[in-house]
């Protein structure tokens, strides 16, 4: 959801680095670039420097199970998500949950060894989960009370509250060895049982992964995966120079061509949308301003939702590389298609008229002395969000709503978003995101990121979490979005307006066959290599 402020000096350095690499490594460039006839089992990938795991490859400090979730590669997980985002098994052979949802029992394979030769047992699994619960500051494990190994292949999770989507958590937590784990050293020296072994990590530069020869599953096709971290412009130059086989890029570069590469666009649920505070402006007991007198009117929120032309935004800002977003979870198994709306500016205007927002002399609507004005916030330094916000402002002006733009840092953005719309990025492979956005929390009785509350929506989500069957819970998550009478869609409360899902773009070297991708979550990083073991050269 967050993205670090772009660090310019770092960008410059990276640029210089690449230039010097290109200048200095003339002789060895054929070595780093693996697309040669004799060497077709390795791949070099350019990734954003923000993707480099600062605390190393330790699940307790966010590797895989952090802000941006992905498969941990070096470690195995109990479950995995399929391409359609349902659950399959990795280490687990089956799992079951008790009637009250408070006890998960998981059986695991008995033939798995860590790369140091020790067998992986249920004790390692229990140790891992107890460790991440203690240490993880980036992911929420408060639903877990403790994990316990019953024998070598059976582990039980004692929960503090029912949590039906636990299998999605099990899909991102990599299992670490109890006998070789130290919280200080494990991050840079990880031992796992996954498809790859960390061969080398040059901090700030690159990560080299080698295939695990004793892997219990299918042997990885790609024997060596090198990941270099560079800024966007450096990655583009590296692709132009033929230094990498796959380089991340963005819509800014999409009108360029690179010889020997094609532009690949992968669908994502990496969405962008504005929160629309759904309560009147007020000051809380602690002195913070929350709410907004304009967006508190549900008709205003509805008018905005159908009054923006999402396709125009995609064409203008994303050069066509995106899809319209109608919810935080488009295309996920728990997505309710009732969220979808069609662009109808006339209807939007009449909604505003009916609600009493009359156009004034200056073309700006007002009602009872309140002007139809919004101060749109965006994260400074994120050019895509800035451009989306500018386009959004242009479109709202057509409806008679006047907008100003303001760049804010993430240090203040969360507080500011309580009263002004902020452009957010979400999208994850877990329905928990719906809960985080729409469910009320704690004593305020309002949702966490933007003031809103609807007890019916809350109840559906509580039921979904308490459900003992994942399939049934999908249905409840959908009902939380729209149950026929209330919800968070156009006909409901629409406390957030979703704009676009941003396609993740990559320069892919000719001949490299990238395996079918799951819909990418938020974060243009490690998701692409989730199945790097199945990639191939042709």
């Amino acid at each position, binding site marked *: 959801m967050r993205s670090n402020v772009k660090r310019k000096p770092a960008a410059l350095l990276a640029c210089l680095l690449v230039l010097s690499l290109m200048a200095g490594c003339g002789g060895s460039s054929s070595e780093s670039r693996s697309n040669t006839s004799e060497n077709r089992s390795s791949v070099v990938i350019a990734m954003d420097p923000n993707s480099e795991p600062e605390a190393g490859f330790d699940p307790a400090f966010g590797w895989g199970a952090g802000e941006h979730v992905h498969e941990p590669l070096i470690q195995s997980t109990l479950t995995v998500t399929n391409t359609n985002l349902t659950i399959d098994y990795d280490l687990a052979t089956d799992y079951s949950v008790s009637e009250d949802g408070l006890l998960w029992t998981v059986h695991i394979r008995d033939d798995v060894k860590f790369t140091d030769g020790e067998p992986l047992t249920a004790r390692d699994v229990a140790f891992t989960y107890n460790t991440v619960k203690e240490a993880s500051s980036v992911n929420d494990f408060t639903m877990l009370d403790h994990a316990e190994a019953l024998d070598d292949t059976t582990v039980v999770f004692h929960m503090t509250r029912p949590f039906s989507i636990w299998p999605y958590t099990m899909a991102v937590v990599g299992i670490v060895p109890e006998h070789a784990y130290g919280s200080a050293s494990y991050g840079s020296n990880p031992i796992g049982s996954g498809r790859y072994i960390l061969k080398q990590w040059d901090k700030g530069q690159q990560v080299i992964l080698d295939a695990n020869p004793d892997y219990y599953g299918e042997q990885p096709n790609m024997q060596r995966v090198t990941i270099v971290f560079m800024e966007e412009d450096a990655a583009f130059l590296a692709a132009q120079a033929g230094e990498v086989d796959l380089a991340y890029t963005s819509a800014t570069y999409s009108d360029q061509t690179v010889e020997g590469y094609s532009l690949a666009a992968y669908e994502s649920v990496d969405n962008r949308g504005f929160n629309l505070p759904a309560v009147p402006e007020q000051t809380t007991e602690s002195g913070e301003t929350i709410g907004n007198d304009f967006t508190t009117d549900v008709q205003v929120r509805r008018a905005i939702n159908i009054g923006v032309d999402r396709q125009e935004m995609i064409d203008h800002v994303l050069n066509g590389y995106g899809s319209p977003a109608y919810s935080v979870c488009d295309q996920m198994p728990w997505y309710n298609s009732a969220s979808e709306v069609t662009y109808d500016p006339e209807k939007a205007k009449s909604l505003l008229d009916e609600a009493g927002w009359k156009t004034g002399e200056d073309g700006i609507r007002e009602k009872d002395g309140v002007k139809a004005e919004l101060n749109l916030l965006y994260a400074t330094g994120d050019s895509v969000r800035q451009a989306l916000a*500018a386009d959004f402002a242009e479109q709202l002006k057509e409806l008679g709503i006047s907008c100003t733009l303001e760049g804010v840092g993430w240090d203040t953005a969360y507080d500011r978003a309580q009263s002004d719309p902020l452009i957010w990025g979400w999208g994850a492979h877990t329905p928990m995101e719906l809960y985080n956005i729409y469910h009320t929390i704690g004593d305020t009785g309002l949702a966490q990121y933007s003031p809103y509350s609807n007890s019916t929506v809350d109840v559906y989500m509580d039921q979904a979490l308490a459900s003992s069957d994942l399939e049934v819970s999908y249905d409840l998550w959908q009902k939380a979005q729209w149950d026929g009478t209330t919800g968070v869609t156009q006909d409901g409360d629409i406390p957030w307006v979703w704009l676009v899902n941003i396609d993740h773009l990559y320069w892919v070297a000719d001949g490299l066959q990238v395996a079918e991708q799951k819909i990418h979550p938020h974060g243009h990083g490690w998701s692409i290599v989730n199945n790097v073991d199945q990639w191939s050269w042709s």
Partner: protein
Amino acid sequence: MKPQNQRRNTILFLIVTAGVLILITAAGMLLKDQAVQTNFARKNLAPSREFLFGTDWMGRDMFARTLAGLSLSIRIGLLTAAVSALIALILGTACAVLGRAADAVISWWIDLMMGIPHILLVMLISIACGRGFTGVVAGVALSHWTSLARVIRGEVLQLREAPYILTASKLGVSKMQIVKNHMIPHLLPQFVTGLILLFPHAILHESSITFLGFGLSSEQPAIGVILSESMRYLTTGRWWLALFPGLSLVCVVMLFALLGERVAKLLNPASAHE
């Protein structure tokens, strides 16, 4: 004949330069709304007759943005240079007039400030003051007074021992009177020159910290913002985004530097009649 001409030329030059700078400032203020106007129908256009400096990725007119940016920089420069110069004058004079202890404290303080890398100091103050416009103004204003203060202190130290000051003091004229009637007029040329020469520094530092992301917010039409945004597009061949705003910044800074030099010549008795 010739020295006369030189003097007249200089004055003419000063008027023209000042005129150009005022014009840029005024034009930038008038174009403020146009500078932030986005229009995605005309994005990424190369320079043409309609858009002299081209347009950027949100379809903003770069000519208007550049002028607005320069205008903003000049106004920030004006404000910060004035504040810096005033601090320098007060501290420099205090240093020399208030006696040894005050002199030691202020000199130590000047040394301390000068010991910290300049750009780092600007950043630190800017962040401490909450970034944005106030942050930049505070950062630049509170870090540029040191060298001018030192010059003024030296001048006052020398002046203090001058016969006419000593005489005035023996005749019972109060210290404040001496400062006001005898010292300030003497320091004025130094001060004015120093003030004008602070401009280029202030403008460049404002742009640099904004460029590095510690200054003005990115929706503001500031030169630093324009340049740092343009970095992203250089590799895709949008040279006009960086070239014209960059050149304009250099021109403005050079104009100020020349202005300062010429004023110094004019005010310095030794060179005034060349």
